[in-house]
């Protein structure tokens, strides 16, 4: 487990600096230094008066299994949302005015968020999950120009 600080809740009471035995909480970027944080220690979490620090695990339980019928229904919706986003892309590319571009951007963001959520409920909640690992294993277009070979390789290292 590593301690993480929600900077939006942090009120700079600095108790975490006083109680941390390794100095992990005292950093220049507001984030707790995970490499110094002690797995079993939660001194900062308990000391923080604003509830801004929590401990998060490095390993997660697998996502609950999904039933085939649900997966199919979510997939039908996902396909539709993908087509809708392609339409928003086309509208963005053709946008002749700032207003048209604004609307297309907002729609694209919105459609993407809904599509991502459908994927999360289809087994892709966790990057550590098997579906995500299979996705990495079977990436298409690896021979195409611009494919980020190093990024894909590093991800497979991180998610073996």
């Amino acid at each position, binding site marked *: 487990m590593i301690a993480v600080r929600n900077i939006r809740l942090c009120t700079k009471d600095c108790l975490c600096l006083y109680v941390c035995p390794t100095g992990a909480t005292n950093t220049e970027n507001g984030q707790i230094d995970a490499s110094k944080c002690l797995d079993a220690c939660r001194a900062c979490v308990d000391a923080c008066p604003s509830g801004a620090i929590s401990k998060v695990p490095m390993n997660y339980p697998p996502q609950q299994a999904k039933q085939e019928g*649900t997966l*199919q229904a979510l997939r*039908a919706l996902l396909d539709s949302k993908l087509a809708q986003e*392609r*339409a928003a892309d*086309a509208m963005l590319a053709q946008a002749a005015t700032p207003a048209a571009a604004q609307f297309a951007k907002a729609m694209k963001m919105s459609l993407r968020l809904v599509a991502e959520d*459908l994927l999360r409920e289809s087994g892709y909640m966790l990057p550590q999950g098997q579906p995500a690992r299979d996705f990495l294993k079977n990436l298409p277009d690896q021979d195409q120009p611009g494919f980020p070979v190093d*990024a894909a390789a590093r991800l497979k290292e991180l998610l073996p």
Partner: protein
Amino acid sequence: MSVYICSVCGYDYDEAAGDPRHGIAPGTRWEDLPEDWVCPVCGADKSMFERQGGVEAVPAPAPAAAPAAQAPANNDGDAKLMAVMASNLARGSIKQYREEMSGLFTRLADFFESRSVPEGDWQSARGLVDADIAGAYPAAFEAARAAKDRGALRALTWGEKVSKIQTNLMGRWLKEGDAAFEGSDLFVCDACGFIFVGNEAPEICPVCKVPRFKFNRVGRGA
């Protein structure tokens, strides 16, 4: 006097009370509300309201066996699907404070995004959203309920409401073009995708209830 409830955010329009802050006098019947009146909380239009105590909105017995509304055209070899796969995993990584992993997934997402082929327009997109609301969402709700899959039900609940706003806004855009959101910004909820039209994001998201700072502002111009 009846009460009409917004199916997106739950606001109730009480005919007896009207909506005085928006110039609607107490006692104004639903039928007499101007057609361009929108929900004062979330911006949904009149078509998204249901009369309280009216016919229960039974999930339309979507032809379960019918294949999902025609698989929309896909000329991009699933590039868009891959892009969304990767952007979702980037999001999942950052929630775990895994910055490096998130950045790598984002690079994958950008690559596939660049290979995706834009296709369609607001008319076609709106047709698909409306078909989702009429058929694919009810069918998915049914499947998720049968499986007691509350996680899927959560995503469907948010997604259906956001879809209703999407079709409303596309309708306004198709009708009014550049004038549709004149003088307003658009704010997109970073958790559920709800789009708010106004000068400031709402205090909490009417759909998923996250606080204001979770909204991304999409302004006009550069």
